[in-house]
């Protein structure tokens, strides 16, 4: 990954997502848990903040929507429920996927914007619906009321745009506009260099809902193809949409500084075409209609229009004028000027230039100076400030929100060039922080909004690039005001290190341990070859010191690599919740001993087997609530995930109180699937029958569900765990539940072996397989047919000769007793006859590589202190 910041952001974001998800689950159980709300809000807020640094607009937008929703939850304006938690979790999942994608390809997938928009809209709908209920009006209406479109900013329609709109759609839009639902013109002039920051203007403008017509135009005339720079955006967009202003702003929220949004006067939509016609009927109509209009008798006017429309030919120009008039009159309170113009048009056969009639949303003060009428930025600034005012009012005091509002307001004022207001606002924010109350800011904002007219000097007309840059630099330190710094200082105590570095360190320590083993050999040589007992003793003393240090280092590096099992346990609450909801089961998941630590490799490798076991429990073990009640159990089942340390292994148990495993069913299924023959199945004890589920190809699910039972059965669990040097066991009581127990070594890095002699060579045997070492007098070795055995504490132990197992020539030894290594292999005890025992030793086992991979019977190799290579046996394969 090229970007260092991104490399740091990705793990941080994953951690925050995890925190948010677990917080949400807590919230679902206890909606009034304030700590959880704050935790989730803070995590989501941080993701949003940091993601803004990268080219991941879609991600930021989605997280922002989630944050808004959580903000409402936090301020108790919104009640959290399962559906909401589902929605939020889905959004977080999506964000998680995008993070993966960012890690893989440094960019979001192509459809990210659309997905973000859809999901964010879904989240916001939730926000909107509750707002609506609170206001006792439909969400749409409430929003429009809250954000009055200033009447003086009027759009000038590019003629090409109207031509793009089919006449019928145009008429429909006109009808709506007359009815008060303003049609907006969105003019979007993307920044020429916008392709480089990942903006796709065409895609952006397509996100605006309710589009009626789109006009694209070249900003500068196209030069010759040779001079064309395909990466400089030279297009302007004009979009006619019937969406309310808030929705447009939402869709274009990242390009708002390059966008103007203004309502279109209905008059500008009028477009009449048709054949000319003449006749007295039109003059009559004009007279009567004008009279009705003057008297305000709209009902009679409507009737007159309807009567004439029914007789006039539909292709006539004047008849079409009537259609428009009819639409204009369909509003409850028609606009007299517009109606008059249309009446005149129908009467005269031509449409006079617009008299500049008032607009549908005509509540704005008429006293505004006309010179400002055409400045769309004013109106934008006004709406931005108004929305900040509203959100502050709703949220109350909150240091983080206040800081971000402060940044926004300051930037708006900055771009308007209103330095005096900026100073006043800054003072108000300082006062607010001191008083821990939003009141000073609210009153200052209200003053700016209402009293002082928003004007700006001509110098700032074309929003200069430098302003934009200042905007960016000002945003960055913004969140720091919110009292975040102390948090950062605490976090700095732990260090994030690349795993490869730790692995390297561990390998080096391993080498050190091995080379340290050479010192005793040296001491021996000093004594034997050079006859210097003194020197030998000194070497041994030094060896003792180095040995102690090396062991401490080894222990410490192991500690570094240790991870708590919480790493894998943490994903289960979410998983179990989702699966339980899907299956309609009720499950109470209990986690115990999350602090138990084990080596990173072990913890990571454990994730999948554990997942498999828990899914199996959920799918096959736990019954449906009704079935449980019928069996006299509580409807809510319980799954217990427990980890603990036992000697030098970590034990993880998955315990459920479901229906348990039925040995008879297992036997039947195993025979049916050809896993075992009938006779063999009959011979098995119940426990042995249960163990059949670990055989490859065994899966008891009658039908394949999407949870488990895809044919990859429990045998995967067994192989994975055994590969790690662990063991799996299942115990189950029919009707009471099942317990699966995984036992794994704490660390795989260092293996303790015993060195043995056989056929004149040295071999290593892993210590965990050795039960004991005994010397058996020759006469006590009995032969049963061809097999040798001996009796150890009243148990018959079969004997094998290691040299024979390895196909090596046996050297007859004249000793009176045989050295026997009693080993535990695959649950059975076996005695290995060897030539002699040697010392035990800690080694770093190197697996056989290259052409040696295929050789059975060896677990790997290691270096001895004197530089010889020692082969370590794998007794499981050998026997």
């Amino acid at each position, binding site marked *: 990954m090229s970007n260092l910041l991104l490399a740091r952001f990705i793990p941080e974001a994953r951690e925050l997502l995890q925190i948010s998800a677990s917080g949400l689950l807590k919230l679902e159980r206890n909606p009034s848990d304030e700590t959880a709300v704050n935790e989730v809000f803070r995590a989501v807020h941080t993701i949003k903040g940091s993601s803004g640094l990268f080219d991941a607009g879609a991600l930021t937008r989605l997280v922002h929507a989630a944050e808004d929703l959580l903000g409402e939850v936090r301020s108790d304006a919104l009640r959290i429920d399962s559906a909401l938690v589902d929605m939020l979790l889905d959004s977080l999942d999506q964000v998680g996927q995008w993070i993966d994608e960012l890690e893989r390809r440094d960019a979001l997938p*192509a459809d990210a914007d659309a997905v973000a928009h859809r999901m964010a809209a879904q989240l916001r709908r939730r926000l909107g619906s509750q707002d609506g209920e609170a206001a006792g009006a439909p969400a749409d209406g409430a929003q429009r009321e809250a954000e009055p479109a200033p009447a003086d900013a009027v759009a000038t329609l590019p003629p*090409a745009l109207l031509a*793009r709109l089919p006449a019928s759609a145009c008429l429909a839009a006109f009808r709506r506009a007359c009815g008060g639902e303003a049609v907006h013109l969105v003019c979007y002039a*993307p920044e020429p260099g916008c*392709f480089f920051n990942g903006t*796709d*203007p*065409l*895609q952006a403008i*397509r996100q605006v809902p309710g589009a009626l017509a*789109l*006009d*694209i*135009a*070249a900003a500068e005339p*196209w*030069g010759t*193809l*040779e001079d*064309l720079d*395909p*990466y400089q*955006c*030279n*297009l302007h967009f004009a979009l006619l949409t019937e969406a309310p202003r808030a929705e447009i702003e939402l869709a274009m929220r990242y390009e708002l500084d390059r966008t103007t949004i203004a309502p279109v006067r209905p008059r500008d939509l009028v477009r009449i075409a048709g054949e000319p016609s003449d006749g007295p009927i039109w003059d009559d109509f004009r007279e009567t209609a004008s009279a009705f209009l003057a008297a305000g008798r709209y009902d009679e006017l409507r009737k007159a229009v309807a009567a004439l429309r029914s007789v006039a030919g539909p292709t006539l120009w004047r008849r079409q004028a009537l259609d428009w008039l009819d639409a204009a009159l369909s509003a409850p309170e028609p606009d007299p000027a517009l109606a008059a113009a249309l009446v005149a048009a129908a009467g005269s056969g031509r449409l006079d230039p617009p008299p500049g009639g008032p607009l549908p949303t005509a509540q704005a003060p008429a006293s505004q100076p006309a010179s400002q009428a055409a400045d769309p930025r004013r109106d934008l600034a006004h709406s931005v400030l108004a929305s900040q005012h509203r959100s502050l009012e709703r949220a109350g005091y909150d240091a983080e929100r206040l800081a971000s509002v402060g940044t926004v307001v300051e930037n708006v004022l900055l771009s308007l060039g209103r330095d005096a207001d900026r100073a006043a606002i800054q003072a108000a924010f300082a006062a607010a922080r001191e008083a821990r109350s939003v009141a000073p800011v609210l009153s200052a904002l209200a003053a700016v909004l209402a009293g002082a007219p928003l004007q700006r000097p001509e110098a700032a007309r074309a929003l200069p690039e430098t302003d934009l840059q200042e905007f960016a630099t000002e945003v960055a330190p913004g969140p720091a005001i919110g009292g975040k710094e102390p948090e950062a200082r605490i976090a700095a105590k732990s260090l994030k290190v690349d795993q490869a570095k730790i692995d390297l360190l561990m390998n080096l320590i391993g080498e050190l341990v091995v080379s340290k083993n050479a010192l005793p050999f040296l001491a021996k040589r000093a004594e034997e070859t050079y006859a210097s007992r003194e020197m030998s003793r000194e070497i041994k003393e030094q060896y003792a010191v180095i040995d102690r240090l090396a062991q401490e280092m080894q222990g410490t590096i192991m500690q570094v690599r240790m991870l708590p099992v919480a790493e894998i346990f943490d994903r289960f609450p979410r998983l179990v919740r989702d699966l339980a909801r899907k299956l309609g089961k009720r499950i109470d998941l209990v986690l115990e001993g999350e602090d138990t630590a084990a080596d990173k490799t072990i913890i990571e490798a454990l994730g999948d087997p554990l997942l498999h076991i828990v899914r199996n429990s959920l799918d096959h073990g736990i019954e449906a609530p009704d079935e449980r009640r019928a069996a006299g159990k509580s409807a809510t089942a319980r799954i217990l995930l427990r980890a603990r340390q036992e000697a030098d292994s970590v034990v993880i148990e998955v315990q459920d109180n479901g229906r348990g495993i039925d040995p008879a069913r297992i036997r039947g299924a195993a025979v049916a699937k050809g896993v075992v023959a009938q006779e063999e199945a009959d011979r098995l004890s119940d426990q042995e029958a249960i163990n059949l589920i670990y055989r490859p190809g065994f899966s008891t699910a009658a039908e394949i569900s999407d949870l488990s039972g895809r044919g990859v059965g429990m045998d995967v669990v067994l192989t994975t765990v055994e590969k790690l040097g662990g063991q799996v066991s299942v115990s189950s009581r029919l009707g009471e539940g099942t317990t699966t127990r995984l036992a794994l070594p704490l660390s795989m890095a260092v293996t303790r072996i015993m060195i043995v002699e056989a056929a004149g060579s040295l071999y290593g045997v892993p210590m965990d397989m050795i039960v004991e070492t005994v010397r058996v007098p020759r006469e006590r070795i009995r032969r049963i047919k061809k097999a040798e055995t001996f009796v150890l504490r009243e148990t018959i132990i079969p004997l094998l000769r290691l040299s024979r197992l390895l196909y090596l020539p046996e050297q007859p030894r004249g000793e009176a007793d045989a050295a026997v290594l009693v080993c535990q292999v695959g649950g059975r005890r076996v005695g290995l006859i060897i030539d002699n025992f040697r010392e035990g030793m800690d080694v770093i086992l190197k697996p056989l590589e290259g052409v040696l991979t295929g050789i059975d019977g060896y677990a790997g190799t290691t270096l001895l202190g004197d530089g010889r290579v020692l082969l370590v046996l794998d007794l499981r394969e050998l026997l």
Partner: protein
Amino acid sequence: MAIRIARKIVHLEGRCTVEEALPLLEALRKPGAHKVVMTKCEGLHTAILQVLAAARPATLVPPADPALAGLIMPFLQDSSPASGGAA
């Protein structure tokens, strides 16, 4: 790659990204009458759109997707020379 060039015919297929603007421009810079086939095009970046608008290929086959065609074709046909617009 969503752009496929076969002699004088450029095919735009699937989603055309910003990276493909340059190869497209280079193809259209070569002298002669070009034909751009967008039948299988499902979406295109603004950069592609403006290369098409600036280069005015002699023949332009609109995308099969009516929504996309409705979005871009009026603009492209306006900026096409008379021969292209008629085709």
